[in-house]
């Protein structure tokens, strides 16, 4: 792969990751949001594979394939199972409406470019220039956890945060050592399983769907 193709592939894949983050804010149907999440997970895997091909690093290519399987297929399937239990599958009342959310996400992207200046300066490769996109995905994930009220939306927000961090890790260091990378991916999978169990229990025992209904504990 020559230099120009490599960087344009990388830009497209990383761009797709951030684009998916915006789409999750734009859509209200929870099913569509979970589909977007699957696309984002695959794009993330492609980033790792493109980097691996460029650096002739077999381990990184394998990691990329695992990411496609885990974040593109396994995790979205798990989240979709939670949806199967819930009769309401739309985010009806976010705290901030859709147009304002998109403006907010745009502002967060600028913030991400500002905050990562020292990192970009240090890396100074074509991959390094894309690091702010990862940080922006992370910030949008936070934002959606704060403004969305459904249990599933919070799981999606958490996964956006995680995908953003994974994108930064791939772009900045071509992946942390394999042991840590695998530990981290396994952890995310387990967190989603745990959240799914909790969401199902909350729904089946107490008919709780919205996090606004979780008001029992306070000072």
């Amino acid at each position, binding site marked *: 792969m020559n230099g120009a193709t490599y960087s344009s592939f990388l830009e497209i894949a990383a761009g797709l990751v951030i684009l998916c983050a915006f789409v999750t804010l734009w859509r209200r149907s929870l099913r569509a949001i979970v589909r977007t999440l699957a696309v984002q997970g695959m794009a993330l895997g492609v980033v790792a594979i493109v980097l691996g091909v460029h650096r002739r690093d077999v381990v990184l290519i394998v990691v990329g394939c695992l990411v496609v399987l885990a974040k593109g297929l396994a995790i979205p399937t798990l989240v979709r199972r939670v949806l199967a239990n819930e009769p309401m599958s739309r985010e009806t009342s976010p705290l901030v409406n859709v147009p304002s959310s998109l403006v907010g996400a745009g502002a967060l992207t600028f913030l991400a470019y500002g905050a990562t200046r020292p990192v970009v300066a240090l890396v100074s490769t074509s991959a390094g220039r894309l690091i702010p996109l990862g940080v922006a995905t992370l910030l949008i994930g936070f934002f959606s956890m704060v403004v969305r009220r459904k249990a599933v939306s919070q799981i999606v927000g*958490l996964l956006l945060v995680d995908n953003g961090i994974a994108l930064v890790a791939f772009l900045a260091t071509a992946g*942390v050592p394999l042991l*840590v990378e695998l530990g981290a991916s396994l952890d995310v999978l387990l*967190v989603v399983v745990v*959240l799914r169990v*909790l969401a199902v229990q909350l729904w089946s025992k107490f008919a709780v769907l919205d996090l606004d209904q979780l008001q029992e504990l306070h000072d």
Partner: protein
Amino acid sequence: MLAFVLLLVPAATGCVAAATPWRRWIGWLCTASLGFVLVTGVVLAVLVVHRPALSAFGGVLRVDALSAFMVIVIGAIGLLAVCQSVRYLEREVSSGRSSARRATLYSVLVQGFITAMLLAVVAGNVGVMWVAVEATTIITTFLVGYRRTRGALEASWKYVIICSVGIALAFLGTVLVYLAALHAGGVTHVSLQWTSLMSVAHHLDPGVMRLALALLVLGYGTKVGLAPMHSWLPDAHSQAPAPVSALMSGVLLTVAFYVLLRFKAVADGALGVGFSRMLFVTAGLLSLAVAASLLLSQRDYKRMLAYHSVEHMGLIALGAAAGTPLAIAAVLLHVLGHGLAKAVLFLASGEILIVEGTTEIDQVKALLARRPALGGVFAFGLVALLGLPPFSLFISELNMLRAEVHVGLGWVAAISLVLMAVIFGSVMSHGRHMLFGARPDGEVAHKSPLNVSVPLIGGLVACGAIGVLAWPLDTLLRAAAMVVVK
């Protein structure tokens, strides 16, 4: 190799507990495994206190004086909590509130929780430390939600969401530290080994390290319970079964703080102490302020204890901000003393909940007259936590304040003294309400069973003893402090 055996024993105990239906002897087996952890901690401390660190598996596991000290903390507080779990589970099973299967689940999860915390403190690799701390979140979620009431499920939902976000930020911080190490000049071999990060600390890019340390303090700080990321803590601690609250408040918070201390040492090498001091002072003072304001009007005694943990985590953050060897030694002594006293108090509060049937401060009256043993333990526990002599928290708080004044943070010490006075006053008034008063006519004084009082009094005696007797702990504390102070 000893470090590996240390991890193997609780893990194997967990497997045995998983394979056998719950019986009382399983509970005692779990207690014995914690006894083993405590003894091994002492042996490790003797081995490394004046000698270089032990390592295994090419440095994935590494034990220096600081790790050995943390193993002792986990062993001591774990022993108390697991010992009391036997009684807790017996009562849950005999009253039909939980089945033998759920008691098995509880025992397995507690052993897994202990193993994960031990892995976090004996890991030589900061990536493995991260994995271990994240594993504690996943394991304890089901322990927090063990009672499966609406409140317990709500608390575990908040706990796992907030702590997962926190720990994700800590991962980003770790990635940035690794990035800085990759670009450190003149380094051929880069890894996430803590020792190799320390050896290149002076060459790490300051801009990236600033961002990384801020993310790490925010991330691991969530798990420590530092304000403003503390909001999961009072919910989780008040909803979890008492022995689990004791473990979480007594050791889990400080295990996360231990990881922060390691990163602070790396960042101080790259940036000097100024930046980390600013972060720790901000987080510490904010935690004290939050704890002070929410303790004033607290109505629930388990939440009162939880906010008290936020205060103590703030205090150790301020001690770490001072960062002198004396200050770090005092921080570590505080970690042990607070852990013991808080574990005793949470276990006592579990008993109070059982006999009184409420967690409201208003509903509990005249404990000292009605239940002298339980009330006495609760009273002495509060005295210890409020930092009065002869308990060790008095000495550690005094030394932390002295160190703060010594490095020119006198204003921080002054503000923290004022906030501590507010907290002292409000906890005293809540405690007075629960403890003092005359016994109602016709009610006889209840005795507490020996298997409740003996471990709790043992914990308090230990907390007093380490305050009065400096030897042999002070040699270990000084050696442990020198690990993270240059």
